[in-house]
């Protein structure tokens, strides 16, 4: 098992719980997408009826339609699973790409995070104060950094962040390379130094 941790907010004070990283195949991804969509529908009703609020930015995402790279053998879907449910998903492109930032990586390569999302019931944009688990993005980025190290990219990553998530990636040490004219979103890269710091500082604290 690949162990990670999450914050369990269901009882106060919240507590840290163990979760696992698992790889999903097409069948597992389709099942998860269907389950998540039922949850999205539920929370949309709540948001519209009770608060008149808009759902989060990723509301129209359909995970079962996303991974064309999965069929092409380049994509890898990782899930954070806790208490039997998939609490978050990430689609990582296994084929390393060239970094846009010249200082990101000594090898010049990075892995690209195609998509990353927490389950609807774990998103503040849907569930507000009723979110169940936190730390999902951290667990998945941790996995991406480790996989990047394994393929020789020294932990370097690239991704396009949704506006509400830009602060998260900046805080983790990703460099904001500005708006990508093609995608219309900010493109971020985690350089190898930042990746090493992200993991090494924590290792030092353990000792």
């Amino acid at each position, binding site marked *: 098992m690949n162990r990670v941790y999450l914050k369990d907010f269901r009882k106060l004070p919240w507590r840290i719980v163990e979760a696992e990283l698992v*790889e999903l195949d097409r069948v597992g991804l389709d099942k998860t997408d269907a389950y998540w969509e039922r949850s999205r529908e539920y929370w949309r009703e709540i948001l519209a009826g009770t608060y008149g609020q808009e759902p989060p930015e990723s509301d129209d995402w359909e995970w079962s339609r996303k991974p064309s790279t999965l069929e092409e053998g380049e994509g890898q879907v990782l899930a954070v699973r806790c208490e039997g449910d998939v609490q978050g998903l990430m689609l990582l492109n296994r084929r390393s790409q060239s970094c846009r930032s010249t200082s990101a990586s000594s090898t010049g390569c990075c892995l690209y995070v195609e*998509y990353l999302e927490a389950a609807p019931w774990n998103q503040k944009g849907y569930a507000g104060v009723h979110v169940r688990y936190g730390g999902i993005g951290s667990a998945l980025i941790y996995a991406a950094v480790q996989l990047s190290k394994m393929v020789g990219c020294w932990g370097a990553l690239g991704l396009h962040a949704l506006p509400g998530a830009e602060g998260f990636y900046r805080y983790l040490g990703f460099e904001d390379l500005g708006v990508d004219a093609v995608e219309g979103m900010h493109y971020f890269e985690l350089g190898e130094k930042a990746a090493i710091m992200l993991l090494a500082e*924590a290792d030092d604290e353990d000792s």
Partner: protein
Amino acid sequence: MKIPDMNLKTFRRMVKAEGESESVSSGRSAKKRLDAAPRKASKGAAVTTAAPHRAKVS
């Protein structure tokens, strides 16, 4: 796939970042999402669909 187990210090450091944001979502552009065909399920289905985590809203 064998990723080293996360240690608690790493976790504690990284989750601080989540307090800095509304979400953690990343992905390619809206263009790709708009290109996708609509789901089969109609919006009205939500009323009769079991809510997986309904018990949380009390």
